[in-house]
């Protein structure tokens, strides 16, 4: 089981990817990895550079978690989804602002920063990008 308290050093270290979708791109084979990697899992190269992934995409597949890990119960049900971003990179993300019955494959989503969980009354608030349905706009 995961620890109830979030690891503050890892939250701090992961801020660029959690807040801004920073990923790594392999200079040798072009593969993009999220979360960022040290070694390209496709070709084994260590020649990687930092890139920011596009903040919109579509849902490829999804699942509703109704018995989440300890420390996440307050947010039940959690909807986790594989999202294909507009550059083709596929990432695992959480959906928000949508009822489970309204989630469909192919739905357009965009990234927004949200609370992931809070570590008790005295701990840190963990934030990360989640994905929500694109907002319909009026005359534009």
């Amino acid at each position, binding site marked *: 089981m995961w620890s*109830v308290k979030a690891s503050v050093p890892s939250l701090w270290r992961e*801020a660029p990817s959690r*807040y*801004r979708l920073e990923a790594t791109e392999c200079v040798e084979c072009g593969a993009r990895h999220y979360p960022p990697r040290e070694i390209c899992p496709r070709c084994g190269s260590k020649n990687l550079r930092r890139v920011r992934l596009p903040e919109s995409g579509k849902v490829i597949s999804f699942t509703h978690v109704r018995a989440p890990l*300890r*420390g*996440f*119960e*307050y*947010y039940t049900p959690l909807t986790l989804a594989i999202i294909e971003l507009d550059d083709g990179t596929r990432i695992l993300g959480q959906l*928000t*602002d949508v*009822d489970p019955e309204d989630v469909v494959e192919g739905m357009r989503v965009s990234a*927004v*920063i*949200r*609370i*992931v*969980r*809070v*570590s*008790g009354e005295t701990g840190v*608030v963990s*934030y990360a990008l*989640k994905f929500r349905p694109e*907002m*319909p*706009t*009026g005359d*534009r």
Partner: protein
Amino acid sequence: MVRPDRGVGIVGWGVYIPVHRIRAEELARAWGRDWKRFAAGVFVEEKSLPGLDEDTFTIAYEAAKNALRRARIDPKSVRAVYVGTESKPYAVKPTSTMLIEALDLGERSTTGADFEFACKAGTEALEATIGLVGSGMIDYGLVIGADTAQGAPGDPLEYTAASGGAALVIGPVENSIAEIVASHSFVTDTPDFWRRKLVKYPAHTKAFTGVPAYFRHITTAARALMDELGTNPGDYDYAVFHQPNGKFPLRVGKMLGFPKEKILPGLITPKIGNTYSGSSLVGLSAVLDVAKPGQKILVASFGSGAGSDAFHIEVLDGIEEAQALAPRVSDYVNWKRYVDYAIYARNRRMYKMPNDMGAY
């Protein structure tokens, strides 16, 4: 009246309002009140509330992102980030640094702080940023007014205390879509509304909130500004006042001589409630969403405790192009999902949870 040495203006604006709404009738039902008798007088039909995973930081982030979309500047050139709020996620730990990190602002060579002045913390942050840009110390600053406002269960404030925020990118007038020509602030020590340390909900003195607080401060600040500029209500196309409910802005406008046609375009509270530090800036944003070059706007905020900041703003060329670059206030107002009181209480974290389940 104060005005900057060099011309200062609004380079970009943007808002964020959570999608969740609760109807005033549902709030009344939970506490056995007759909605029509008890709450219809405030003219707020429904109000916004945060999602389970939203707070003032996440609201500020989305408003700021919309403002930066319209500003079309390099985020690295933003050298001041000030968040006005009375619902900081942390009592001690700035919301501004979270925004600087998440939005990759100013290469971290950025001043940042959270401001508190009840409902006028956002315009207080604006005043400070006008000073930094107007003196030439910085070129661009980001100002935010955002809140997830608290009203005690069953209290009259529960019918209006809402969630949302607005952001302005402030910069040199040459790159702006509206010039902030001058401002005037008026403050006194007036105990109309407060919240003590470690207390969850605010207290207020009913007799003090109207005439000696809201109306006195707004009329004094707005009249002083117009007197010194030599303007009168007829010179303005729009007037935006702090909107604690749907009634006060129209009444203060009448006292000052503004017809309701000039107030209604920026009067958003009847549809979403009072977003506290966001309130007058959300109203200003709704006006900027539709304003045309050459039009003049009077804005007067109000914060309990108490004070008002009044601003004279003139719309410039280029605003129409910027209007289309981000969602408008009306887009957020129209995008909504209703919740009942049980879900409202869960999202607002009103339940005492048994142990660590990830809640606040």
